[in-house]
C-alpha cells in the first residue's frame, strides 16, 4: 500500500513538472514565435482541489459497491488469481489445473490469496499488483492429483550415431473453486493505509 501512496504522490508531483516542462520546451524551440500556440499557461494549478475532487469520486464509487454488496446484489464474482507462477481467471464452480509438483493432496481445502483482480457484473477491483490481503477470499478444494499422459522426448543427430529417447510424465493437480467472496467493504482511502507487513 505504501507503493500505492508513493505512486499517487508521484502523479501529483508530475502535474506541476508538466507545466514547467512545457514552458521550458517553448523557450527552447526554434520555430518562429508566430506559429506557437501561446496559450496562457496558468501559473499555479490547485493540486489539492483536484485531489479532493478525485477522492470524492472514488468515495462515491466505493459507496455504490458497498451498498450493492451489502444487499448481496453483486451477482457472480470472478477473480484473477496467481497460482504456481500462472494466472487464472476463475469464478465459483470452475476447475483449474496446476502443472508440476505441488504439495497439497486430495480433499484439502485451500484459499488462494494472491488475487490480482476481482470483479462482478457492475464493478472491477484491480490490484496493484495484488488486492490487499483479506479483501477477497477465494476458497478451493483439491480434487485430483495425477500424472499427465506419457510425453516422448526423442532426439537424434543424423550420421552421428546419436539417438536418445526419454519418456516423461509430470504431476498435475486439479482444483475446484468453491467460492469467491468480498469479505469486507471496499475502502476509498486504502492508499493512505499503512503498508501491510505481509509479503508473498
Amino acid at each position, binding site marked *: 500500500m505504501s507503493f500505492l501512496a508513493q505512486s499517487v504522490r508521484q502523479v501529483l508531483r508530475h502535474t506541476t513538472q508538466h507545466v514547467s516542462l512545457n514552458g521550458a520546451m517553448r523557450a527552447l524551440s526554434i520555430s518562429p514565435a508566430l506559429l506557437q500556440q501561446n496559450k496562457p499557461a496558468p501559473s499555479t494549478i490547485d493540486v489539492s482541489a483536484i485531489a479532493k475532487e478525485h477522492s470524492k469520486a472514488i468515495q462515491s464509487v466505493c459507496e455504490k459497491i458497498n451498498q450493492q454488496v451489502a444487499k448481496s446484489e*453483486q451477482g457472480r464474482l470472478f477473480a484473477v488469481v496467481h497460482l504456481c507462477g500462472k494466472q487464472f481467471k476463475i469464478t465459483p464452480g470452475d476447475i483449474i489445473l496446476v502443472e508440476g509438483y505441488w504439495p497439497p493432496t486430495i480433499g484439502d481445502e485451500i484459499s488462494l490469496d494472491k488475487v490480482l483482480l476481482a470483479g462482478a457484473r457492475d464493478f472491477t477491483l484491480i490490484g496493484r499488483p495484488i488486492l490487499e490481503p483479506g479483501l477477497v477470499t477465494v476458497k478451493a478444494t483439491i480434487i485430483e492429483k495425477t500424472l499427465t499422459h506419457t510425453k516422448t522426448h526423442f532426439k537424434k543427430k543424423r550420421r552421428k550415431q546419436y539417438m536418445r529417447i526419454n519418456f516423461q510424465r509430470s504431476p498435475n493437480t486439479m482444483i475446484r473453486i468453491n467460492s469467491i467472496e468480498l469479505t469486507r467493504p471496499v475502502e476509498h482511502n486504502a492508499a493512505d493505509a499503512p503498508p501491510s507487513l505481509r509479503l508473498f
Partner: protein
Amino acid sequence: MSLIRGFAVAITMAKPMNRTGTVQTCRHIKRWVSPTLRELAHRVQKQGPQKPEPRAGFIEWNYRSELFAFGKRLNEEFQLPLLQTAFTERTYAHQEQERQRKLGIAESDLHTADNVELAAKGAHIAKAYIEAYVQHSLPKVPAIGQKAITSYLLSTETLAHVSTHLGTKDLIFASEYPPSNETLANTLNAVIGALADSSGVERAFLFVRDFICTQLNQKDLLDIWTPEQPLQLLGEVCAQRKLGDPEPRLLGDCGKNTVLSAFHVGIYSNRQLLGKGFGEDVKTATETAAIDALQTLFDLHDNRRPFDFGIQLETKHVRLEA
C-alpha cells in the same frame, strides 16, 4: 547303463558345439501361436458384442466390505442391513423367492426385503429438500420455473447419473445387468431413505444437497426452463408488478435486407429499459429481448449469484409432510 550315460554325456557335449555354428538358435514364439490367436479372434468376432460381466461374478468380490466402503466413501453412517435392503430391487427379490421355493425351503423362511418402501421414503425426502433448496436459491422465479428446475433435478436421467457415479451399479441386486436408468434412480432414492433411517433426516438432506443439488453448478438455467411465449409472460409479470406495459423498440440494426441481417431490440416499460436482445429479424430479436427482460426480473442470468452448496437449510423450511 553306463553305456547310456556315456551317450548322454556325449550328446550334451555336442549340443553347444552345434549351437555355436548356427546364427539363430531357437524360435521364441512358437509356430502355432499366431494361427491360434487368429482363430480365437475369429470366434470372438463371430459371437458379436458381449454383455458386460457383472463385477459381482469375479473371484475378488466381497459384498459386505463393498457395502461398508460405500458408506465410508460418502462419509455417511449406514446400517448395513438397511443399505443391503436399499440395493435389493423388488423383481430380484421375487426371483430369489421363486428360486428358494423350487429348492424346497419352507414358506416361513421365504422373506427377502426389497427397497420399495425405502425408495418411496427417499423420493419424498429428496423432493421436499430440492423444492426447498430451489425456493431458497431462486426466490424470484415463478412457481412454474421452480417446478421445471425441481423436476429436472429429480428426473430419472439426473438421478441415474448421480447414482452411477456413486458406485451403486455393481452393488444393485437387480434382474438385469447393467441396471437400467430407472433401477439406478430408484436405488438412489432408496439409499437416501436408508440414510434417513440410519443417521437421521438431517444427514439425508445434506446428502441430497451435496450430490443432487450440485448438478445445478454453472448450469444454464434457460436450458432447463425457457418460457414459451415470453412476450406474453413478460406482459403478465409487468402487470403484476405494476411496471407498465412492455414496448419493444429498435435500438439498432445492421445489414438490413441481407442474409446476415442483425436487429437489436430493447424492451422498455415506463421508459425504463428492461432487456435487450439480438435476432436475424425483428420478431426473433423481440423474443430474445423479452427472454432477457424475464431473466433480469427473475434473476436467472448467467452472472447471477452462484448457487451456495454449503448452506444448511433449517428443517422447518423443508415441507416433509404433504
